[in-house]
């Protein structure tokens, strides 16, 4: 099942205008990605953690999502300390662990978790439909926006179609293994998904024309106004300024 685990809620973050949240997440993420000082990165991690607290999400789910990056980070930790040139800290036969290598791996780890936490706290806390509307009013081209909304509307339908095809295969005794038969079955299954998607698209487009579609979706929800928006904007700007200050001093 595809779901949006963080989109619903009534926290401080959930009540902020989506446009502000997207702008804040983008600016803060870019600032994190471009920084290298440890003070900056630690404060970025603290800011991201505060945003997660303010979004009041299910901690187990958040941790689960953050752990997705752990695999690549473990690979980095295994390799970077011994391949990066620098001051040797520890030698074991031909292998030398360098201080610079460990510092680089730490930096990357901090950045990775901060940027993902910001995404979860600020952007994943809105439904994709709200994201589409917000992106539209932030100047993203209309066609891209419509593509996003159509795609979002139908991933759930197509996923159900996929589950139906898998069920049908199972009923016919299909057991996946490492063999050509399995790969052929999955290929036909995926092919059928593409065929049905394309046929559904024709019906949907005809239905859209029948309803007088001429190039714009009309959003039902409006952006929330209130005191929380200027408060959030000030908090974001001060976070950004303090990160820039720490990076440059």
């Amino acid at each position: 099942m595809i779901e949006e685990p963080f989109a619903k809620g009534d926290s401080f973050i959930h009540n902020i205008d989506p446009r502000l949240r997207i702008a804040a997440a983008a600016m803060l993420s870019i600032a994190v990605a471009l920084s290298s000082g440890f003070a900056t990165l630690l404060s970025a991690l603290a800011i991201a953690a505060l945003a997660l607290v303010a979004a009041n999400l299910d901690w187990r789910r958040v941790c689960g999502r953050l752990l997705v990056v752990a695999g690549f980070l473990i690979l980095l930790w295994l390799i970077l300390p011994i391949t990066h040139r620098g001051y040797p800290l520890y030698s074991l036969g031909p292998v030398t662990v360098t201080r610079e290598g460990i510092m680089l791996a730490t930096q990357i780890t901090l950045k990775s978790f901060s940027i993902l936490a910001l995404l979860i706290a600020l952007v994943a806390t809105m439904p994709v439909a709200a994201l589409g509307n917000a992106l539209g009013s932030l100047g993203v081209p209309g066609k891209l926006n419509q593509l996003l909304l159509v795609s979002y509307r139908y991933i759930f339908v197509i996923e159900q179609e996929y589950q139906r095809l898998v069920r049908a295969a199972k009923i016919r005794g299909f057991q996946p293994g490492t063999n050509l038969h399995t790969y052929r079955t999955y290929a036909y299954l995926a092919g059928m998904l593409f065929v049905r998607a394309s046929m559904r698209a024709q019906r949907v487009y005809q239905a859209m024309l029948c309803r007088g579609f001429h190039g714009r979706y009309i959003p039902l929800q409006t952006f929330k106004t209130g005191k929380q928006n200027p408060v959030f904007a000030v908090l974001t700007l001060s976070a950004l300024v303090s990160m820039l200050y720490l990076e440059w001093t």
Partner: protein
Amino acid sequence: MHISEGVLSAPVLASGAALAAAGTAVGLKKLDYDKIANVGMLSAAFFVAALIHVPLGPASVHLIFNGLVGTLLGWTAFPAILVALILQAMLFQFGGITTLGVNTIIMALPAVLGYYLFGRLIAIWPGKSMLAGFICGFGAVLLSALLLGLTLVLTGESFSIIAKLVVLANVPVMIIEGIVTAFCIGFLKKVRPEMLPFSTTFSPDNST
């Protein structure tokens, strides 16, 4: 295939974003309003198909299908893949904001190349479309892995071993992707040839 957040250097991230914006602009220009439903739907199917895990010995790998998407969509694969990546970021948090451009290039550039190289091959070698499909699926993942490795190497010399490991680790994925894409193109050729590019088959429901 995603590059993680926080790894790449600023010039790599910025040039990835700029190239992705350019590719998306070309794709959007080629995308007429009457095709939005079709491309959006295929982007959704691409998103779902990337959830398919196929067994490989004791482990499993998930399919990518960027070669096939490129063959079906041409330049509009750029916005379609960007949209699928945005949806992955929103729903699963695979990749964040700063790597969106780089990840779009890694996936979409091989897709568009696949369209120009193998879309035509499928059309002119009617008997060998399965072979063209295999090269298309294999080549697209190979190119994606090489692009991913390139972003790492451009970021810093010390990443070169990791870059090599990433490419090597993806070799089994390339082979499986090639096999699956070959069968998939064979299937589409039989069931709905008009979905494949440069096809001259007349189809009653496409004629309107």
